[in-house]
């Protein structure tokens, strides 16, 4: 096991992720060897941390190279023309830089967090209003996410992405269209088997810990 789960939920060993020192030989959680894909999720988390803590532009460039073309594609699929999608994507990525310190890796993968920024910007531009966001729940100055929670959440996110990829094409398209905001595809399908229950419990746990640290 890489990290002891501390009952207080107040470990500060998230630095292991932040340092990028993910030694694959030690990268084993609860008896399970983490796959290459899950390793990637953890690396994105480390890069976000480098941006938040050190204003690391090379970490930003790596995140940009991977996510910018996906964000642009997402915006085009959502109805933006290519030029608007390009401008909007740049805006999303620049926002990521300025909000990096707000990213909570025990509640969202980097892809999920970027999705929420892109969605809000898309509503701004295509629907012309500022979508109200829920209150932000910050970690207090003495607390930060539990490292074991971070790893587990990132693994869950990786599994969810893999499960989406394995869905029959039609079901996958239905879900994609819902997220692109194309609602003409509102047919009813069978159960997808996406692993949503575990990820929900994980987020709930992270929220409980966050509430403790705020209390």
């Amino acid at each position, binding site marked *: 096991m890489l990290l002891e789960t501390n009952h207080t939920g107040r470990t500060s060993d998230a630095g292991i992720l932040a340092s990028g020192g993910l030694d694959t030989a030690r990268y084993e959680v609860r008896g399970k060897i983490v796959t290459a894909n899950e390793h990637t999720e953890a690396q994105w988390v480390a890069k976000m941390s480098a941006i938040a803590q050190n204003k690391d532009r090379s970490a930003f460039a790596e995140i940009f190279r991977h996510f910018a073309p996906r964000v642009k594609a997402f915006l085009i699929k959502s109805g933006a023309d290519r030029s608007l999608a390009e401008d909007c994507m740049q805006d999303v990525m620049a926002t990521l830089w300025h909000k990096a310190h707000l990213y909570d890796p025990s509640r969202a993968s980097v*892809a999920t967090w970027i999705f929420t920024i892109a969605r809000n910007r898309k509503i701004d531009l295509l629907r012309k209003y500022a979508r109200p966001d829920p209150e932000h729940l910050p970690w207090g100055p003495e607390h930060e996410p539990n490292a074991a929670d971070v790893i587990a959440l990132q693994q869950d996110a990786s599994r969810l992405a893999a499960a989406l990829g394995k869905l029959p094409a039609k079901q*996958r398209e239905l879900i994609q269209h819902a997220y692109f905001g194309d609602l003409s595809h509102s047919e009813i399908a069978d159960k997808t088997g996406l692993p949503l229950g575990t990820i929900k419990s994980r987020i709930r746990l992270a929220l409980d810990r966050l509430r403790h640290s705020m209390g």
Partner: protein
Amino acid sequence: MCRTMRNEIRSYQKTRHMTHDVQHPVPDALLMGYATGALPQAFDLVLATHVSLCDDARARLETFEAIGGAVLEDMDVADIAEDSLDRTLALMDGMQPVAPPAPSSGTFPTPLQAIVGGDEDAVRWRSLGGGVKQSVLQSDKYGTARLLLIPAGRAMPPHSHRGTEMTLVLKGAFRDEDGVFARGDLEVADAAVNHQPIAEAGEDCICLVATDARLRFQSLLPRIAQPFLGI
């Protein structure tokens, strides 16, 4: 028992009261609609406010956002402009950091305060008679969001709506045939529901109400959420 552990338990007991126990969970389809950005503006306000008060709804919302993350990761990549990164770096340097909506200590959660322009005392009420007051916060062709104040022990004025109506309690409580709704509770009623909520005795009841009177909301919902993404 070590001190840390005792503090932990105390802190846990304390936090249990920070967000309410869920009596009436918000339907998945609404949370998914909020996650995808498909809801009328008036409903977005109610959900942003509800999620601020209810961690269970927040966990479910963030789960739907996780699907969005998986969809983004799964995208075929688009070509980006050659100078895209340079232009983004320049944009970054010219941008002012924006503070996120921090937790509010007042009656109204932060997203609602942003629309009202303050807390409870900043509301510009208009009388509807019988002590009942309202304040329309936002209205467009897709829906209307308003604050409603019902004096303790009084009934909400009879009203009808063609589409969906969402009522979020911010202060006091009301009772109808579905039970008691207190701070943080959200009631979602469709046109078929004929209800007349009555404010509980002791405290005036303030609710945030959104209706999609002019357009039937059901046609807007990503209905696929309901039967097969149940979380």
